[in-house]
């Protein structure tokens, strides 16, 4: 919403610099998004007389100009223009001047000659488009005079305000002026339009208005304006509209826009000659009806739309959104039917949105106009159109429908102060509200407040309290810090999530954050099963599927980096995955998952990462079950179990999947469902007293068939060794000539120790024998000697 300072001043004697006013507007909740000084900023530009013109000794395209600023002294300027003569008056930007484009004029040497300022063209001063040469001024001016004074230039300030949805009143110059005047403590008044009525036939005899849907149309005021001659609007009006970014069209359209910007009330004009019998009927549209709007489009109407129909009940205008083609004003129009209406905000919002016809007018109707403004707006319209010869016929048709009630609202003084943390008394509350149009009637310790009709957004006590706060000034309300009676803390899950991340970064793995949106087919390509949730309104098809696994995001990240010649990345993500649930529930399944991808690494690297997590969370009874899983390497994949529950998988990505995603290296992979994992017992670390007696080490190497998992060998050893085994480590794996084909050698180091004694050689020998027997008897394995 753009407003001009000069326009604001027509409603209140607003004083202050542009910066001060900008600050005040922001404090009022009308954030200044942009501010422009119009009419040029001429500070530092003065009238100068050309004393002499001399060629530059070093340059052809520059001449030296001696100018006099009124003190008779010659000041040398280097100038690239040659259109002036000795004795001419020209504008000189003196040293320190900041030009409209932001250039600051400084003393400069041009090819060895000093220039003490800059002579300006009309365009450089943003006075005109002329850039042919230096702006030659009227010879009657006095050298040394500031240019602004010499030319009688007026500056204006254009504020571009961000008006929030709860401020229908601030969608007009008058409304902004009201707020600003209250803030500055100066009187505010909307000038009464001065317009004589003609002796033409009374509108009452020429118009017949029926409002059939009183909820749709809260008020329909119509007047007749005669002697209209379509042509340009006055130049001053065009300038203002242009400043606001509104292209001037013709006198009728421009006046309509001008009144809308000034008072916030849109209007619509019909060519009265095209409205059969001057009859208008306001109702809801019927399914199947159509209307050709001003822009020539045929609109299919719905019962949610409001329409204005002719005598024969055919729609001729789309209420509050766009007029119809058949009654359009044209060059032959002489009499105008002026419609000033109050439309149901929701209706206008729906229709304008559905048809893509949001406009300055519909925006104002949507936010709710002032239903009591109609008469004034009509007279202001007529007053302004009279400037191009039009006359206002006597008589007003004013049909009222339903508008929101304005019952007084009880505002409790104690409640105001309890919400704001203030100590306002009743007088302060009244003096806050009254200047912005709220009527305050004291009721005991509290007050009944009548909300003005231009604030239909405001309906209850808390909204009035907001207005009081705004008027008091947010910055004037103090700053206190409430003391939390609680102990601030992270939840267990939040702490543990940090442990996961810290463990992984400690291993040199970087965290990534890919988007959770995938392209159709991505998940299938990565071998991820499950039924993904899809976006119903994606931005692009490539981002239309919600991930059921973090796999795609990490593979795409590896591929992206590989394409920039960065291989061997080690990355992880902790994030949500989403899926259709197996059973019906209110929201889809959403789980928190960890995934790790190690570029250029083999499966064992994933086991290392998992082992670190086992340690970090003191997980008990974890084991790997070698298997196959879709998308993972068929012979290098294991499910991870903790205490009998599957918590994830590890191994490598299927090479075919890597290739499909453009990852040119093998990828070790680990994925863990954190919801499952952290739901299991973990991080329990009871003290267990370790033995003070000496320990003994026994090494055992077995030749084991390749079909037999090492885990089985380990299990047999543990079982056979019993409580005396305090640690077991696979310290060597050998494949080659020295073992039988189809087998490999697995060498284990056993450390044996008793809690209460030093083990004897006999005991150690017995344990060793038990282990050998257990392994050899139950597995395809033999002891190596």
């Amino acid at each position: 919403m753009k407003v001009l300072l000069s326009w604001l001043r027509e409603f209140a004697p607003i004083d202050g610099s542009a910066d001060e006013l900008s600050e005040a507007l922001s404090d009022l909740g009308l954030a200044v998004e942009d501010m422009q000084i119009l009419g040029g900023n001429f500070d530092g530009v003065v009238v100068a007389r050309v004393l002499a013109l001399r060629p530059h000794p070093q340059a052809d395209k520059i001449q030296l100009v001696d100018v006099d600023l009124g003190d008779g002294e010659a000041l040398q300027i280097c100038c690239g223009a040659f259109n002036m003569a000795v004795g001419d008056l020209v504008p000189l930007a003196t040293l320190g001047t900041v030009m409209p484009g932001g250039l600051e004029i400084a003393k400069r040497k041009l090819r060895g000659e000093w220039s003490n300022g800059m002579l300006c063209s009309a365009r450089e001063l943003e006075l005109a488009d002329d850039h042919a040469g230096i702006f030659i001024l009227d010879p009657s001016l006095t050298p040394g005079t500031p240019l602004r004074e010499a030319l009688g230039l007026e500056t204006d300030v254009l504020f571009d305000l961000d008006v929030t949805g709860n401020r229908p009143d601030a969608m007009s110059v008058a409304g902004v002026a009201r707020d600003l005047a209250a803030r500055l403590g100066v009187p505010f008044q909307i000038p009464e339009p001065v317009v004589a009525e003609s002796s033409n036939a009374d509108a009452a005899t020429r118009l017949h208005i029926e409002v059939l849907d009183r909820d749709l149309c809260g008020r329909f005021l119509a007047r007749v304006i005669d002697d209209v001659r379509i042509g340009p609007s006055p130049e001053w009006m065009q300038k203002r509209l242009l400043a606001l970014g509104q292209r001037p069209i013709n006198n009728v359209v421009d006046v309509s826009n001008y009144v809308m910007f000034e008072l916030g009330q849109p209007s619509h004009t019909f060519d009265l000659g095209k409205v059969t019998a001057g009859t208008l009927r306001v109702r809801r549209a019927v399914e199947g009806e159509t209307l050709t709007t001003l822009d020539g489009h045929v609109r299919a109407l719905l019962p949610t739309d409001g329409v204005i129909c002719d005598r024969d009940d055919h729609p001729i205008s789309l209420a509050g959104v766009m007029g119809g083609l058949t009654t359009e004003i044209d060059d032959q129009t002489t009499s105008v039917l002026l419609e000033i209406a109050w439309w149901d905000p929701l209706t206008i919002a729906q229709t304008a949105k559905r048809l893509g016809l949001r406009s300055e007018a519909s925006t104002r109707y949507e936010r709710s106009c002032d239903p009591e403004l109609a008469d004034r707006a009509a007279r202001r319209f007529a007053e302004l159109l009279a400037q191009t010869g039009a006359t206002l016929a006597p008589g007003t048709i004013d049909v009222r429908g339903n508008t929101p009630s304005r019952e007084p609202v009880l505002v409790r003084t104690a409640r105001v102060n309890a919400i704001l943390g203030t100590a306002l008394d009743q007088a302060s509350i009244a003096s806050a509200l009254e200047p912005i149009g709220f009527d305050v009637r004291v009721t005991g310790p509290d007050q009944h407040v009548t909300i003005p009709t231009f604030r239909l957004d405001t309906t209850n006590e808390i909204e009035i309290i907001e207005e009081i706060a705004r008027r008091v000034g947010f910055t004037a309300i103090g700053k206190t810090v409430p003391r939390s009676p609680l102990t601030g803390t992270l939840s267990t899950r939040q702490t543990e999530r940090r442990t996961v991340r810290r463990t992984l970064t400690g291993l040199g793995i970087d965290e990534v954050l890919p988007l959770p949106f995938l392209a159709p087919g991505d998940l299938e390509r990565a071998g991820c099963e499950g039924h993904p949730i899809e976006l119903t309104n994606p931005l692009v098809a490539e981002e239309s599927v919600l991930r059921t696994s973090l796999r795609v995001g990490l593979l795409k990240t590896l591929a992206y980096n590989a394409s920039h010649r960065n291989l061997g990345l080690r990355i992880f993500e902790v994030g949500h995955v989403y899926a259709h649930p197996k059973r019906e529930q209110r929201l889809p399944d959403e789980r928190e998952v960890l995934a790790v991808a190690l570029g250029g690494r083999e499966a064992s690297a994933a086991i290392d990462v998992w082992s670190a997590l086992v340690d970090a969370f003191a997980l008990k009874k974890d084991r790997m079950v070698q298997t196959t899983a879709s998308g993972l390497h068929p012979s290098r994949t294991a499910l991870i179990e903790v205490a009998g529950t599957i918590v994830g998988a590890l191994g490598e990505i299927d090479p075919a999947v890597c290739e499909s995603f453009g990852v040119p290296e093998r990828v070790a992979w680990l994925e863990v469902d954190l919801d499952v994992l952290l739901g299991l017992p973990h991080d329990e670390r009871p003290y267990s007293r370790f033995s003070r007696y000496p320990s003994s080490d026994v090494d055992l190497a077995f030749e084991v068939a390749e079909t037999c998992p090492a885990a089985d060998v380990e299990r047999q050893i543990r079982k056979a060794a019993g409580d005396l085994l305090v640690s077991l480590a696979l310290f060597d794996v050998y494949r080659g000539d020295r073992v039988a084909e189809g087998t490999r050698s697995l060498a284990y180091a056993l450390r044996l120790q008793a809690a209460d004694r030093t083990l004897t050689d006999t005991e150690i020998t017995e344990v060793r024998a038990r282990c050998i027997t257990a392994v050899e008897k139950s597995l395809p394995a033999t002891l190596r000697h």
Partner: protein
Amino acid sequence: MNADIADLPARAEQAAGGATSLDEIQRVSTDFLGKKSALAEAKKALGALDPDARRSAGQLLNEVRDRIESLLDARRHELSQTARVAQLETERLDLTEIRERTRLGHLHLVTQARDRLEDLFVGMGFTVAEGPEIEDDWHNFGALNFAVGHPARAMQDTFYVNYGEPESTLLRTHTSPVQIRVMQSQSPPIYSIMPGRVFRQDTADATHMPVFHQIEGLVVDRGITFADLAGTLEAFTSAYFGPGFTSRLRPSYFPFTEPSAEYDIRRPDGSWLELGGCGMVHPNVLLAGGIDPEEYSGFAFGFGIDRLALMRHGVDDLREMFINDVRFLRQF
């Protein structure tokens, strides 16, 4: 005999000097001090002497033994030093021959910023609450006082998902639905922050992403005021940004707070930066959360995490954060 004995140290010295290893020194030691050495023989012979002669001869033998021992020790030390030097030299490494350096992994910038924010608010007595990223319409809009057809719904370009009734389920457009979940699950006093991922149907550019991160704060207790909101944000501002940073509130509009405000911070150079929105929790929102607005009041605030992360490191394009280029990730 005395002359032979007196000569022993010189001979031992010569023998030790010829020894080139600790083993050889040991042999010299055996030769001169061992059971079969001349010294041992002489000691055995002492018993045959008269007391005076025995005393003086014994004294001589002790002196000789001491001298030999000390000169052997000296030689032993010398040789072990030489051996050590030789050994250490064979172990010489060029420590500038560095292959790939070990490096720690780096947390994503968003995580780093989120952790800092969480820690700070935890220090101020807040707990950290979370909620689902896929939400229902009621938690995201209805409970937050967005009436049906409210223009503010259109303001937040919502991604809907194919779940349940059309437009019933969506990707949350803000972290505010967690406010409702917190109020429903616990009674006041509530001092919580709610960080998380949010979604808007915005095309990615330097300042927008369809997926980004917010942090929300909610305080509900008896007697909470707008001044408390201003004071809490002021305390946060100086704690997070550092001394010299202050804050201000400007009137604004959000359906779920009343009064509503924009939260701006003022940098030490005097410039302002819009950080987020805040306000007193709307009575309708308290009611939706099952809290009596006549008994309790509260405030809420929210702002973007990603932009704070960018600002901290001078990154000028939001998209950089989500490309996950390792050359970006490893800088922070």
